[in-house]
């Protein structure tokens, strides 16, 4: 009766795990509350079916409980918290729409926004952490779109990629700069004030599934690819990667730079593991977490609590744990 339990609240002393009814796709720590997370899920591995966005809280006692959840008529591939409102979140829905919910409003007024411009699946969203009023979406229709809450339509569309765009990441320093990663094997750096991309990096020779900026050095960018590697790039000298991190056994699905340590990265992969790397050291692989039993597709690092990590995967589980401890350990 797997589908009769829609949520599991764990009591004190139980594993810090949250079971989602659908397959996990993304997880994000709230930028406002250290104990709050957002989880995007999709039914049937995102191939066909519904989606659900969960807002979950870590209990002081050690468990995880659900604050609320929102349903969509198609899978949710990615999600992001608003940087300006603590209760607002945006979801990248596989039907090509972007939906925003406000957890502080009653169900009857949610979602507060539904934008439908992308012709195909929206695969990623990222909220601008500097301006805080806008967010980006990356879609399988090869384009990226820039949105604000107060406009009914996108402000801009960025079309240069020649294949699915899988990821978009705002620069943590510059209000107008972002990077995109695409299945056309390139990563592009854009300035929204410019009509076209300012830099094209043919970063991998396979599809690139994710990218993220270094939080301390605004010139460094990491990419994760189907070629199983993570590469770190200096945008000032993008002919060759600064580092290539090999160690995953399958495509690397998501990459995140640490908000606390400059050279620390976290990745997850279709090899079902989550890895933590330091690209400056010789043995770059610091830790490999083997707790998922299906593809691990979502990871995040808490901005508010150093070393607090979260991951989700197609095994319908969300783990939150302190770096260096066993995600499955009893807290």
């Amino acid at each position: 009766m797997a589908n009769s339990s829609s949520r599991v609240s764990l009591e004190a002393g139980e594993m810090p795990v949250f079971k989602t009814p659908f397959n996990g796709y993304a997880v994000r720590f709230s930028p406002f509350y250290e104990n709050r997370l957002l989880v995007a899920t999709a039914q049937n591995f995102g191939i066909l079916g519904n989606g659900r966005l969960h807002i979950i809280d870590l209990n002081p006692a050690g468990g995880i409980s659900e604050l609320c959840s929102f349903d969509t008529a198609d899978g949710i591939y990615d999600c992001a918290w608003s940087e300006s409102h603590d209760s607002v979140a945006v979801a990248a829905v596989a039907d090509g729409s972007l939906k925003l919910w406000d957890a502080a409003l009653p169900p009857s007024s949610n979602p507060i926004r539904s934008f439908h411009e992308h012709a195909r699946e929206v695969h990623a969203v990222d909220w601008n952490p500097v301006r805080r009023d806008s967010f980006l979406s990356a879609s399988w229709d090869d384009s990226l779109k820039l949105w604000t809450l107060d406009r009914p339509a996108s402000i801009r569309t960025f079309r240069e990629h020649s294949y699915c765009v899988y990821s978009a990441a705002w620069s943590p320093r510059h209000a107008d700069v972002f990077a995109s990663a695409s299945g056309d094997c390139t990563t592009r750096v854009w300035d929204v004030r410019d009509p076209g991309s300012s830099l094209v990096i043919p970063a991998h020779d396979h599809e690139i599934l994710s990218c993220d900026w270094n939080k301390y050095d605004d010139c460094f960018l990491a990419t994760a690819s189907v070629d199983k590697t993570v590469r770190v790039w200096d945008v000032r000298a993008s002919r060759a990667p600064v580092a290539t991190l090999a160690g995953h056994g399958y495509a690397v699905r998501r990459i995140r730079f640490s908000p606390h340590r400059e050279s620390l990265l976290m990745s997850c992969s279709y090899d079902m593991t989550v890895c933590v790397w330091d690209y400056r050291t010789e043995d770059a692989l610091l830790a490999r977490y083997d707790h998922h039993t299906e593809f691990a597709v979502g990871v995040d690092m808490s901005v508010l609590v150093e070393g607090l990590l979260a991951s989700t995967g197609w095994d319908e589980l969300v783990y939150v744990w302190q770096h260096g401890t066993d995600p499955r350990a009893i807290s």
Partner: protein
Amino acid sequence: MAMRDLVTGGAACAVPGSSSSSNPFGALANAILGSTMKAQDLKGLPESRVTVPTASLDLRPEDQFATIPGSEYENQLYQHADSQNSEFLRGFRSASHGSFEDAWGEVHRPPILPRAGVREIEGHFTEFEQIYDGGVNSNIHQIWDGPPQRVLSSYLHYFVNSDRDRTGFRPTALPALGLSESDKRCIRDRSCIMARHIFADKNEQYINEQVSSFLHCLDIDNNHLIRGPMQGPYAELEEYWNNSQTVLRPTVPHPADSWISEFSQQRASGDPEAWAHSFEKQHGANGWVSEFGQEQAQLLSAGQLGGSNLSSIAAMEQTRMLAHTLAQNNDPKFQNSKFLQFVSKMSRGELIVDDNQIKPATETISGDWANEFHMQYDKKPLEEHFSGELFHGANTWVDEFSKQHRQEEVDDQWVTEFSKLHVQDWAEEFGQQVAEGTFGESTTDRWAEAYDDYLDEQLAAKPKSSASSGVYVFSDMNPYVGHANPLKVGQELFRKGLLSEAVLALEAEVLKNPDNAEGWRLLGITHAENDDDQQAIASMMRAQEVDPTNLEVLLALGVSYTNELEQAEALRYLYKWLQNHPKYKPLASPEQSTSLFHADIARLFNEAAQMSPEDADVHIVLGVMYNVSREYDKAIQSFETALKLKPHDYSLWNKLGATQANSVHSEDAILAYQQALDLKPNYVRAWANMGISYANQGLYEESVRYYVRALAMNPKADNAWQYLKISLRFASRTDMLEACDSRNLDLLQKEFPL
């Protein structure tokens, strides 16, 4: 690119803005939200009845919006960016670069979270308003009208293969249950794109075959598979690609070097279709096209069929490859990955929305050798060949079972009863049979062999008691969950004979209304007709819990337990039927219910039959009871009497057939089954029974065809898989055992058309 071009034009699958689904989760979420949000309501919105929120600073009037600097810039960019014309961009940039900056700058205001008020605006944002309205109104429930792919798939196979059938295609109306075009598009696109991520190590051909066979199973036009990410007309990217082919490639370990060189060669030759040509060459050029041309002509969609024929070839190859790949990866996580099994099953036609069958194959074979025993038991002439070592095997199983029983602490009447009582019954019976057995030498060994193998397999697979414990096992992914009236849908599907699909709908019903006895009853009946007695019993038990005196339920339980050779249980329920029947109540004295003897009950029912000889039900019960006591001639008489009263009861014809088969009148049985099938063409149990009858007559190859047909309709009929395996051995078709083990219905249907 070709395929993607097709799809980029259209919107994706769901209705924009209709965000809520009406499944129970949705309802639950709403319920939870409704309560948890109450406190916050007050804080956030003083008047909590938010239908049209006020205060809209955010959405400026339409005309103003149209003149936002940079919006025209956006439009132009929209149209021309793809051309990658640098001159255009240069000129363009100087012309209106500033205006966009204004727009971007303008929107950079202190963020105000809009509380809407869209409806106050008289503008022409009709589309947006629609979306917005749809989104805001969470009462609009979007039902994911679940594609019953499994049924659809079976039917298509059936249809395509029927040209070669001697019987021809039975025009069973294909129900309007199909995947919508957008569903198909979703499945096709997403599986194409995901496969590329997941099978990163594999070559293009492998990926395409993987995807084609999967799509084929869903009858999705797969003539437009993506060939690779780099089909765009971008010289710049081509260059990168070529660079990566020649320079970077060697740095990445890649197992498919031969493919790479081949591919680069073709890229170099500049013929974008080269790959396709080579694929065609490998698959016998257009051979399949002409081969199937005739069939195509008769069919609605030539393109569709063409695709599926090509891919059915690919499917066989691909299944082996996938199995091989999975076997190669020793990581137990991969061996156990539900997703990979999911893909694998999909590629074998067991499909995307499968039930809790997404489990390791060893589990799906499932632990009830009881069924196996039952089956062999039915075959009187053969059951007598069991040797002593089988006895040993049985004991081992008993130990295993009780061990597991202790482990799992299933507090479950049935299990207890079963382990105490019936195993011993069987064992005794076994001994008796063995003792009085008269052996036909040649077949003995093969039977023993087959049975031994089976036992080994079962022991290795650690029998799972849950399936046989009387606990109802729900399907994992049920498209009908959330449907407004699943009972009605279930009844309709049942009536149409789409049993597996009806099961899903009815499960949705009993999940929604666990106290609906009728839902449980019909679910039980459906399982029984779909040849799954364990689930049938479990459903009927639930029905009985809800409505302890429902006559139909009691009768059905009696029959199902009879089928499972559980005499005591069968008698108990048949007696209860009598007790609760308004007419026959006086016949049943309450004290008798504690000690039920077959003879007594039979006497009571005979009395009842004399009381009202026109009541078909009494004759049916009598027939069932005589089956329990193996007085087959009497049973046949009772059923024949009942059939005179109810000539259109297909399940009655099936009962008659089963009884005749048990009493070694297998030829007669086939006639009875044929009657049942004429009345209900999708009666899986009758198809399987037909197979058993042929097997009993030694016509093994013939029996295989019927098992395969039954399985095509319900791949979850585990018993039928076991029967099939045994018949394959007897028919000396061990070459097809692999296909049977891997449950490759495509191959089996092709090999054994009916």
